[in-house]
């Protein structure tokens, strides 16, 4: 199980998902691999079927392939591969995809002995050359560049500077370390991110012939690598294209693709994933952990869950709700922000168990952008609470008729929906029943585990062909 800096070292939705999967599929033994940008310790308990953990640091000293002729040979091959890699990732054509694949295979071959694949390569210069060739502005002095004639503006990359080139090259060098890490012998790799986790899985497939399952939990645009661009548009553009090329290659090479939501499936199809390989496996929550809440509170209270950045939208919505339902209360799950609290609003502070809090309100409202796994929404639905959510990221398709959906960023609509649910007991009951049924059907842990059993079985039937494997541990690969 390969992930990018989450399980078992950091707490979060993806880590929770991984933990439930590993604990649930106890007929499989897991070796955990995590790509870390900063050192971290295991925070999840070690399970019987996942005793070992490999961490891949993205920083630190690079391992060189020796000296003299070996180093020269490594540098020559790696430079050739780096040129292909940069040219391949900066363009979207089929030919470029082939170049990108070929480059990664070459790099995987020369990194098979654990050396850094790009050591000794003048990557900033290679990257800047590829950048210009891909449609960025031509060479220019310190006064700003001009768009290339004949190129549509959408294809133009932001104008890079040498500093951008250096930063992007450093980040790419760090990212490609993932290629040089040997994955322990396994029947199947499961990459739970589309970025660097896929890179590790690709290395295992090409070197050891291990098929891999791909589960993207979030768009490649939101990968951890993107956060390291430091607000530089040109660097972000390069990293984005690298991750996109990697994601597309992952789709092409994966034995099975199991996105957790319809939204991720749509993105995968848009980026060339084969519909035959795709199977949506929604995230699962154990219904026994969230049994139905029988009683409703006397006062008309709304429990709200969401990111703190949503509060400026939620508080005006609550003010509007108070005009319609004067005795309404708002219970915010999370810490209180600094500043004055409006009347009727209370904050729970950081929490670990949410079920009891859902019981404090007549309805649960959820808004704001979220990852592909809206756990609070599923939990509230399982608890039999009427839920209202905003339609961020196509959430409406996930909840179906199990929750009331309002447009995002619209306090008036949110307030109106809350008012109607708070004051209409029958509507609350209908929503609660529909939500619980839907959550038990689609988002139960057993459904998720069964889904992955089937996906793993599918992956086993798609072993890589012998010619897909790298023939040699060093040198040029096809």
């Amino acid at each position, binding site marked *: 199980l390969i992930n990018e800096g989450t399980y078992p070292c950091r707490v979060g939705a993806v880590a929770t998902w991984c933990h439930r999967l590993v604990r649930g599929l106890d007929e499989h033994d897991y070796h955990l691999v995590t790509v870390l940008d900063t050192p971290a310790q295991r925070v999840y308990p070690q399970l019987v079927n996942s005793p070992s953990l490999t961490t891949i640091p993205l920083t630190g000293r690079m391992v060189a392939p020796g000296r003299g002729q070996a180093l020269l040979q490594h540098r020559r091959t790696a430079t050739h591969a780096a040129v292909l890699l940069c040219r391949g990732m900066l363009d979207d054509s089929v030919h470029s995809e082939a170049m990108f694949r070929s480059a990664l295979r070459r790099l995987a071959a020369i990194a098979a002995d654990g050396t850094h694949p790009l050591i000794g390569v003048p990557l900033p210069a290679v990257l800047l050359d590829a950048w210009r060739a891909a449609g960025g502005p031509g060479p220019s002095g310190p006064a700003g560049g001009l768009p290339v004639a004949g190129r549509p503006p959408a294809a133009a990359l932001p104008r890079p500077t040498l500093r951008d080139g250096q930063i992007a090259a450093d980040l790419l060098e760090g990212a490609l370390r993932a290629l040089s890490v040997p994955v322990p012998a396994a029947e199947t790799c499961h990459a739970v991110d589309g970025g660097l986790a896929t890179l590790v899985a690709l290395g295992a497939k090409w070197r050891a012939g291990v098929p891999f399952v791909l589960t993207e939990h979030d768009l490649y645009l939101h990968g951890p690598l993107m956060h390291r661009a430091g607000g530089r548009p040109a660097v972000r553009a390069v990293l984005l294209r690298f991750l996109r090329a990697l994601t597309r290659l992952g789709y092409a090479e994966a034995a099975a693709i199991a996105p957790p939501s319809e939204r991720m499936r749509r993105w995968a199809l848009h980026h060339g994933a084969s519909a035959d390989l795709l199977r949506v496996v929604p995230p699962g929550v154990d219904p026994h952990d969230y049994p139905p809440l029988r009683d409703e509170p006397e006062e008309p209270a709304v429990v709200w869950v969401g990111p703190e950045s949503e509060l400026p939208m939620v508080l005006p919505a609550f003010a509007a709700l108070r005009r319609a339902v004067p005795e309404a209360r708002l219970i915010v799950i999370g810490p209180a922000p600094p500043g004055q609290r409006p009347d009727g609003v209370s904050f729970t502070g950081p929490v670990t168990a949410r079920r009891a809090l859902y019981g404090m309100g007549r309805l649960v409202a959820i808004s704001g952008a979220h990852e592909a796994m809206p756990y609070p929404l599923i939990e509230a639905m399982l608890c039999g609470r009427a839920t209202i959510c905003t339609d*961020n990221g196509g959430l409406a398709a996930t909840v179906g008729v199990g929750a009331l959906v309002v447009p995002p960023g619209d306090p008036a609509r949110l307030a109106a929906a809350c008012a109607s649910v708070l004051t209409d007991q029958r509507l609350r009951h209908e929503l609660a029943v529909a939500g619980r049924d839907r959550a038990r059907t689609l988002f139960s842990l057993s459904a998720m585990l069964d889904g992955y059993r089937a996906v793993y079985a599918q992956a086993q039937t798609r072993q890589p062909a012998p010619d897909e494997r790298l023939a040699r541990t060093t040198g040029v690969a096809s």
Partner: protein
Amino acid sequence: MTAVGIFRWVVPAQRSHPVTAECVCDRIDDLAARARPACTDTVDVDEVAAVLEEAGITDQVAKQAYGQPELFALAGQVHKRLVGNPAPKRRAARPVRWDWAGLFRPELTLIRLVAALAIGAADWWLGPNVALPALVGVPLAELMVAWHQGHVRWGLSAYDTLAAWHRHLSAVGWAALTALVPPLLVGVALAGACRGMPADLPQAPAGLLHAAVGVLVAGGYGVLLLLAASRRVVVALALSALVAAGIALVAHYLPGTAQKPQLVVEVIAGGYLLGLVAVAHSVFDSRSYR
């Protein structure tokens, strides 16, 4: 990027109205205008698609309200408008040409400590004639390093070709080298002037020699600082140790010799020259600045 509050009116208001060919362009224009604050630094159409999606625009909305087959096609249209008609940029800040923050790097502080030790020792041994040139030279050396490093950093952020960057680096490097040569010339000239003086003027040659030492030490401070700023701390420390060892040898093996001050100046001048060679090697090397 956040899409909160941008599309509040778009989805609900237009879902109910049929799309006509005339209004599609206007609607997309309008959507692009609304999306602009959330897409100020967008570099790719997929980013626009993600923003639209998080704002609640689905394939169905794209089809019904904007006449596009799907969300990604709508994102393409919006992106085209955003890129084709970029938002007016705020006036860019003037490039920083003085790297004051860089002066606080730990390696430079280390070199300063070494240089302070050298200046203090020379002052204690030879008297105030050494300290005076150093008091003038040290701030000038700090200014020179801030100027050089500032220009180097500015060049990294301004040029997009290695050839232009190397030209810039060469120009800045020659300027720094030129600034470091005069102390060596003045020090050597002062020491040379002492040789030509009559032997019956014992005080004047000693004063001149001490001033020569002061000028060379002040210039040497700049050399060491520039080496440290160019990631050559070890070289700078080795050079300091070499000169200190040379002076110790002179003091130990030639006690009471009349030529001793002259030899000390020559040792420092030799070390200075070596330092200039090391500086020339480092300031033109683009790998020194990452």
